[in-house]
């Protein structure tokens, strides 16, 4: 009897010890070191911009002199703000001090994951379409699927990059020092002291660009974006590392440059990318006329193919007239022995009892409700840029190179998919079951493979010591789709090759943009 009471007691102790365990999962990037770049890239004002023709295309008025009464008043106000920092402000400063470009990239991934949900079918078997002019009603705009998000990452990155090159131009031109370099009694909170001129403020430039671009890309989250813009633009003023006019000049510059980038977005063909039933019918009939089996949706009810005209969106790094030379070679006919061998291989490889393959499938799946494969490669870029302590302008440049290339990868891959209309393995053999969700568009070529080879090629150029690792990751990401039972090996291999070509276009640009 006593023994039993003791064992119950022992259990109770164990129970409460277990319950006292810290279960909070905060994740890896909640706390980061404050950015203190090895190089300020002071010559970045002459780097080659993407949309801007010249870095002074948007004018920034000359700032007041540091000895002027106007500046001294701003300085005094700043010192007062610094002396009265709230805990909430300190938390915001610690968050953003890791670097505005890094943090906006992280916010982009959050927004993509939040909006990466396909619309649920209507009761009559049709599917509703998200409407940018009515973003709050279901289905919320946008459906941030892989092509949409590749494009979103690209525009957000390009706007930040062009705005920062312009910002660096004016920093050099006006050369107004940061407040702590004007008044040695100022000890900024948490932000590293540097020699970089603070007018216009780089964080406000990026925040202005994000304001214009993200509100257009994710209009249902305007309130959240506004709040983040306000924090990002002003945290250095609170921290004693900028004065108010540094911030307002930066915000204005960022917004104006981004407006020019947004004009490109409005006319890049995205509004036609969704396609239509008649377009899908004609794509299908074209390959059927060649004696092939066309891809059809395996969802029930059948969902229109995802962004069937995304292949016609305007690329950044290649001339769309050359699409024929970029498009991968034709796949074997579905009636050929070569195709049958591909199909049999999928059936062999998609093995739910192989735990290591399952791990690979799920590690790289980046499907519904995630930041997508382009987002995954942004995480890798984020880690390298953070570890290297790159300046804001170099960080923006590297994200722009990566994300322009991945948007172009999406364009080339989607053009290929809807050109050949190759059915998924499960369409050709319904006994093939998949270890991850089956994407609703044709198989050839694999988007994951194309994105990953592009990402690995660009990042391998930017961070050469890790090139072999990036390539190994791209290969694994590519194979994950074969193991998942949703792609043939030919989709993966052709996707990798095409992705390397597209990545090469970004590398060519990187070599000549003045930053290397």
């Amino acid at each position, binding site marked *: 009897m006593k023994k039993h009471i003791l064992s119950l007691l022992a259990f109770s102790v164990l129970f409460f010890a277990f319950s006292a365990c810290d279960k909070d*999962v905060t994740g890896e990037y909640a706390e980061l070191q404050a950015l203190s770049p090895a190089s300020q890239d002071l010559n970045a004002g002459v780097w080659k911009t993407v949309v801007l023709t010249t870095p002074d295309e948007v004018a920034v008025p000359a700032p007041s002199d540091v000895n002027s009464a106007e500046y001294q008043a701003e300085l005094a106000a700043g010192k007062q703000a610094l002396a009265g920092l709230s805990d909430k402000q300190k938390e915001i400063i610690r968050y953003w001090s890791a670097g505005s470009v890094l943090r906006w990239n992280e916010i982009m991934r959050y927004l993509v994951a939040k909006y990466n949900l*396909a619309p649920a079918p209507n009761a009559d078997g049709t599917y509703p379409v998200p409407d940018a002019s009515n973003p709050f009603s279901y289905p919320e705009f946008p459906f941030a699927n892989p092509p949409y998000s590749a494009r979103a990452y690209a525009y957000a990155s390009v706007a930040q990059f062009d705005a920062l090159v312009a910002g660096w131009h004016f920093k050099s031109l006006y050369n107004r020092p940061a407040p702590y370099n004007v008044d040695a009694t100022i000890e900024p909170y948490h932000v590293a002291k540097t020699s970089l001129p603070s007018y216009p403020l780089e964080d406000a430039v990026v925040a202005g660009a994000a304001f214009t671009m993200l509100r257009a890309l994710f209009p249902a989250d305007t309130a959240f974006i506004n709040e983040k813009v306000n924090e990002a633009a002003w945290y250095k003023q609170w921290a004693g590392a900028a004065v108010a006019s540094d911030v307002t000049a930066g915000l204005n510059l960022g917004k104006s440059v981004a407006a020019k980038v947004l004009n490109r977005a409005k006319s890049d063909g995205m509004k036609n990318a969704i396609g239509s039933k008649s377009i899908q019918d004609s794509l299908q009939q074209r390959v059927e006329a060649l004696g092939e089996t066309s891809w059809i949706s*395996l*969802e029930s009810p059948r969902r229109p193919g995802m962004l069937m005209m995304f292949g016609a969106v305007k690329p950044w790094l290649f001339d769309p007239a050359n699409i024929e030379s970029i498009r991968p070679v034709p796949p074997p006919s579905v009636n050929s022995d070569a195709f049958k061998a591909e199909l049999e291989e999928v059936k062999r490889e998609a093995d739910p009892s192989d735990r290591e393959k399952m791990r690979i499938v*799920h590690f790289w799946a980046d499907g519904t409700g995630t930041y997508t494969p382009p987002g995954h490669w942004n995480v890798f870029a984020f880690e390298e840029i953070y570890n290297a302590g790159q300046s804001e302008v170099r960080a923006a440049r590297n994200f722009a190179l990566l994300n322009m290339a991945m948007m172009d990868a999406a364009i080339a891959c989607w053009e290929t998919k809807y050109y050949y209309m190759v059915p998924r393995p499960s369409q050709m053999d319904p006994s093939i079951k998949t270890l991850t969700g089956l994407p609703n568009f044709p198989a050839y070529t694999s988007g994951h493979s194309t994105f990953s080879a592009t990402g690995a090629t660009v990042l391998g150029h930017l961070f050469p010591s890790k090139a072999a690792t990036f390539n190994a990751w791209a290969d694994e990401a590519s194979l994950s789709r074969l193991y998942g039972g949703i792609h043939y090996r030919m989709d993966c291999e052709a996707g990798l090759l095409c992705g390397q070509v597209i990545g090469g276009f970004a590398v060519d640009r990187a070599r000549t943009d003045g930053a290397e």
Partner: protein
Amino acid sequence: MNFRTTLSLLLLLGGFGSFPVFSGAQSLTDGIFMNKKFLCAGAFYTHEAWDEYWEGTLLRTNGTIGTVTTQNVMLGLNYGITNKLNAVVMAPYVWTEASAGTLAGQSGIQDLTLGLKYNVVAFNGLGGRMSVQAVAGGSLPLTDYVADFLPMSIGLQSKTLFGRGILHYAAENNLTFLLSGTYTLRSNIEIDRESYYTTEQIYSNEVEMPDAAQLYFRGGYYSFRWGAELTASHNMTLGGFDIRRQDMPFPSNNMDVTRVGVEAFYRLPFLGDLQVLGQINQTVAGRNMGKSLGWTLGLTKFINFNKD
């Protein structure tokens, strides 16, 4: 005697895959004790299916999943350490399939559940025998199955510890009822991804698993030869988030489920009192769970280790 407990455990294995949280919580619910050195061994088959599920609080169908079926075979042992202290151990083999779409079914040995049941106090009252009992136990996954592939996953990979209080009443005329409340601690789990979205983007392969609780009632007729009872249970996840519109389910969703059922048994006198039991239950309310119909068939047998 005691395997009608296990039965009610099995009822709750369904939903999006099966739930160690609920299975662990549901085991050892019986008010009845094995005598010292008696062993009860049981084998059970359970079938559960749903074609509607709650996406958050919205009840819907999904043509690309169709009907999801979860089946399991479970083996269990219940041993009387003393007349007042019983030990139970059980483990199921689970397999899943979807009738539409392409998602591959999963299969494997799921979690081991261990528990001790102690008869704290018993007294005569209300024309019968009342008792207050305490149960303590836990579960742990026996294999490295994939938890982050709902609704096809066979379990959630969480290790659990649970504590339960039981109030049991058995009348002279064989009417009986039981009420119990359970609290289950659940450990965090690790998934194959390095980042995932809940209501925010989390950069970790660790998933915070909220604890769970259960209320359970059963009542009806119980004799040595046969029994028939109504059951009702309400399982709650104490936290977690809702499945978003058209999203996939996730292990740390806020899963709630209310079920009602009937179960019955008969001991076959011509087969040495081999017990045959059956059970059926219907999910009547839920959140982030399948609206399932489940049934179980089982056999149990006593073995007496006392030297007579």
